[in-house]
């Protein structure tokens, strides 16, 4: 394996992992809140949070540029306070991948939390367990299967992210050029052998992710039974 392909692979894994971690917190959190609370505008919020699934990634990337770019309030503040900008960085690529994959975590997480039998939570409360303990000891273990499925999907989606990433982070070799972008660049530049290598590598990673997903599949996870 030569340098550029390995670098692009590691970068893709880093970006996808970071995006998945972001969605583990935000996607699962949003899924829990929408499953458990009743408030006006809940359905509208659900639709808004699902938008990244249907919008073209380039449009999402454009929105992120507007939101995080140096001319935005947030971007200017980050630049002035920390000398940091998301634009043209791997962190920006991770944000883009997280936004694109968000509904893939949020939707199954919400469904998983809604499917947890409320009586089991009541039983835990009568037994003296509440709050975070109740969440980590009863709710999360029973919803975990659906959440994990969503996280794996989002990871795979982040590995393949192209449009939004290109808009926000560009294509800087060794810095923001992920596998899928590197393939495009190699083909554009007529580097067929590099393109072949990248494509085989990407396929191998995808198969590996699927195999891992299969190992973690429903039947093998404790607490699966109704």
């Amino acid at each position, binding site marked *: 394996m030569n340098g550029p392909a390995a670098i692009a692979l590691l970068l893709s894994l880093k970006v996808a992992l970071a995006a998945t971690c972001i969605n583990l917190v935000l996607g699962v959190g949003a899924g829990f809140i929408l499953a458990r609370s009743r408030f006006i505008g809940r359905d509208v919020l659900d639709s808004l949070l699902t938008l990244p699934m249907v919008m073209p990634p380039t449009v999402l990337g454009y929105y992120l540029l507007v939101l995080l770019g140096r001319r935005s309030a947030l971007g200017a503040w980050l630049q002035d306070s920390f000398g940091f900008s998301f634009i043209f960085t791997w962190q920006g690529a991770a944000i883009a991948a997280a936004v694109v994959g968000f509904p893939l975590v949020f939707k199954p997480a919400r469904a998983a939390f809604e499917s947890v*039998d409320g*009586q*089991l939570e*009541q*039983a*835990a*409360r*009568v*037994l*003296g*367990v*509440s709050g*975070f*303990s109740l969440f*980590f*000891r*009863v709710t999360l*273990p*029973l919803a975990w299967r659906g959440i994990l499925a969503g996280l794996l999907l989002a990871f795979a989606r982040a590995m393949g992210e192209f449009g939004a990433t290109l808009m926000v982070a560009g294509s800087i070799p060794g810095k923001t050029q992920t596998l899928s972008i590197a393939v495009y660049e190699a083909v554009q530049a007529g580097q067929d052998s590099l393109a072949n290598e990248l494509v085989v590598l990407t396929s191998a990673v995808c198969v590996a992710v699927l195999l891992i997903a299969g190992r973690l599949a429903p039947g093998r996870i*404790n*607490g699966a*039974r*109704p």
Partner: protein
Amino acid sequence: MSTMELDFAIHKTLRSGQRRFTLDVDARVSGQRIVLLGPSGAGKSVTLKAIAGLMAPDAGHIRLNGQTLFDAASRIDLAAQQRNVAYVFQDYALFPHLNVRQNVGFGLKRGWFNPGAGQAQAEVDYWLDAFGLAAMAHQLPAELSGGQRQRTALARALVAKPSALLLDEPFSALDEALRETMRDELDALQKRLRIPMVLITHDPADAARFGDVVLHLRDGKVVCRTLGRCEEAAP
């Protein structure tokens, strides 16, 4: 602890789509075994959930052995966790991801983690032995028979030494033969432990067996208190 003083007045309106159900029950009873008897939809479960702290009444009060659990007027509403009552659900509500031992020990463990699958605790072992569950301590609820599930639910309820045991239709999930066996078991257990209990049922046979005091419920109201048949109150 021999007799239990239970004093409640519970008002609650439940809405589900177009349907509306108003619960308006009050009673002051003392006894070791109190039965709420009535057909489904009479408001038995809602009453029991209110006593356990799983449902907040709109108005009224609930006092158990002189302790106020709920009082709308003085804004007292103890959390379910603080009421020290045990609740056995109709279909037992055993945690499906935990084995029998973990289920029984659930209430003894504090913090963010469940008890370990093989973690020995003296009180848990005592109740596993008492209910003949030691041999299946490592099995998940899905692998148990109906009777074993009920014993697990009872053990889980009793391990924390509650001041009262609330039972929601404890025998309805069992077939007829097993039902009689489990009635005997619960009867013997209650006599041995002398733990006060409130049992709700639609089955007059349960009331005859366990009812020191029987409150008959119809359409969200207490219609009479008697051991035998309840003459329908004239509308």
